[in-house]
């Protein structure tokens, strides 16, 4: 599979055509089409309830689209199981679940292990390496609820790394972590990018969005813009999408103007 992917270099990492998703009667995503080129770090921004997390869940195959087509590295997403890694939002994880750090990271290896056999040396090595990359090796046998917020976020980063996927989807990895963890995560993400992995990151902080990402996807049900940060972070466009709930951005503009 890897070989096939490497040969077809012109093919985008993710291609979405006319994607429409609804929960019951409520449309969540409407007619979204976009292409994410490979090797980019792309931010997904939009107000609360804009369908950012849903977009991630559709690509992961957890939510069924009503309509539309999703291709990952040129193949329909149903065929590329495990080629997409996922880092959930911290609030959506059950931190009381009886599971240790090492076991969570090992989950990243499950698609490398057939259901009748146990994880082998390769898998354990991959887990060791991933734990080391995010510097939580000494926490391996802790139950996940006993970690600090930043450490919890790193567990899931390690899981995504251990999976060795070509496309990484992250749901608000920077929410509620301290500055040191934010930098550590950013570091891991840029390394993944350097290794040719494509990253799609749901992000809520517009101030840092331009700094972190190569391209931004701005959604609120519909796709409002997709392109380099300077084309997406335009006051007019953002004002339309955020409907005046954009105090933080006004603040930012005043600071720019004062300089």
């Amino acid at each position, binding site marked *: 599979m890897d070989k096939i992917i490497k040969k077809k270099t012109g093919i985008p990492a993710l291609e979405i055509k006319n994607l429409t998703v609804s929960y*019951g009667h409520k449309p969540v995503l409407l007619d979204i089409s976009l292409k994410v080129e490979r090797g980019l770090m792309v931010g997904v921004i939009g107000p609360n309830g804009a369908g950012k997390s849903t977009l991630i869940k559709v690509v992961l195959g957890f939510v069924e689209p009503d309509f539309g087509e999703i291709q990952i590295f040129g193949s329909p997403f149903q065929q590329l199981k*495990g080629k997409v890694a996922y880092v959930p939002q911290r609030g959506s994880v059950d931190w009381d*679940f009886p599971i240790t750090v090492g076991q969570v990271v090992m989950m990243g290896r499950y698609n490398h*292990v057939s259901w009748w056999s146990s994880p082998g040396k390769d898998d354990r090595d991959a887990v060791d390496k991933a734990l080391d990359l995010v510097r939580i090796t000494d926490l391996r046998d802790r139950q996940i609820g006993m970690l600090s917020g930043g450490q919890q976020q790193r567990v899931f980063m390690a899981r995504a790394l251990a999976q060795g996927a070509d496309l990484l989807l992250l749901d608000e990895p920077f929410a509620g972590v301290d*500055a040191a963890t934010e930098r550590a995560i950013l570091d891991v993400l840029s390394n993944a990018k350097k290794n040719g992995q494509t990253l799609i990151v749901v992000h809520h902080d517009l101030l840092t969005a331009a700094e972190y990402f190569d391209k931004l996807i701005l959604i609120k049900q519909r796709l409002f813009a997709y392109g380099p940060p300077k084309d997406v972070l335009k006051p007019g466009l953002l004002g339309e999408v955020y409907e005046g709930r954009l105090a933080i951005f006004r603040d930012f503009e005043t600071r720019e103007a004062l300089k």
Partner: protein
Amino acid sequence: MSGFLYQAFVEPLSQGFFLKALLGGIVTAVVCSVIGCLVILKRMSFLGDALSHAMIAGVSGGYLFMKIAFGIEAYAPAMLAGSVIAAVITIGLIGFVSNISRIKEDTAIGIVYTGVFAAGVVIVSIFHDLIHIDIVHFIMGDVLGIADSDLWVSAFVAAIVLSVIVLFFRYFQITAFDPVMAASMGIPVVLLDYVLTTGVSLVVVSAVTMVGVILVVGLLITPAATAYLISDRLDRMMMLAALFGVTSVVGGLYLSVWLDSSGGGAIMLFCTFQFLFVLFIAPRYGIISNWLRKKRMIPQELREDLLVSILRKKGDAISIQDLKEFVRVYASLFHQAVKTLLRERLITSDKKGLVLTDRGEEEAMKILRAHRLWESYLQSVGAPGGEIHQMAHQLEHLEYDQSVGYLDSKLGHPLHGPHGEYIPEESDKIEAIKAIPLKDLKNGEEAEVISVGEKAGKSGLKKGDIILSKTSMIGKITISRKKTKKTLSKDAAMQVIVRLVERGEKKKRS
């Protein structure tokens, strides 16, 4: 004495009904407890209740069908199949009602299972001359009157359900913990949910004959919840739950013989007491250990003040008498606090006095960081100079995770406090060794230039320059080098690779 013990423990074993109850009960309890772990982790407890109530419709339907079609009385496999069919219909109806209407799932469960249960009761009473089902027996269960056919059903169910759980353990684990990731790996999440629900209904069917409709949920979730209190891994939780299930049955059956009470009731009573007992004594999440921890606890403020006081001695030992001067508390509390810090290995004592361990230093650094950040913040909002230290001293004890990250970003990640003191970084050791693009430097950070890229050529920066980052607004970075200021574009700042100057190096220089 030995006669009494013999009578209490050994004599019941000589009775066939007791042995059968013990055997059937143990098999059922093990499988109930193991699958119960998945039920409580997936928060499906109410479903067990729904399934057990739906069963009566299935059992009477199966009974009636075999009686009318083949004239066979109380044919167990048919009743089992009927129960599973009734369970599937119940679940389907619950899903249907909650999906097509605004009615939420908990209400839908309540509506559907009482409806199906009522249907069962009505069928039994209409056809009372054809089918002989004792509703009271059904509701209360009768573990001491267990029939051979019930034993076979239990063994069969246990074998199937346990093998499925053991074989697909990893899949059940990941689906319960993170269904989104499970789906992305191609694990059939919905199918596994159906397998689990079918497993629960099979288990419920075999348990109802023992403990009855009302108590079956208890057998499903109480041993699992007991194990949940003391487990940090799902596999161990399942094994412990099975153990608690077995002890409930054994303990409960003896209890019922001694008290001459209903078997099912005694089993569940024992099970509940067992849960309460573990709730009290559990090592980490238990009530007693919480209470002990609280009693042993010293005020967080005192603990933090002590650590910082020792830290301010910069590596020198401090005598206990000197340390006491720093904090104004009763001698007894002070000594308890020092003892606690020693026990937690945050400090150690040598000949000259008390010193911080590495871990103690790390913790003290965190508090110092909070203190200095609060000082900077108070100064920036214009608090009177004389009060800043005292106010920061109180505020530094606030919830660390919530306050410090906020202050740090609000202040633009300062490296120095209002009086020019160094603010310790959160994880210095990780940060210092890295080579990073100049763009990622934080406000006030000092760094050494390692390489200069093409675009940054005209900036005049050379390898080995020590620079101080001033502001890090989007797009532009201003740095100062030997007191001259320079502004770089984002692209240029990307191409300049720098290494953060380590704290140790800085100390040496100053």
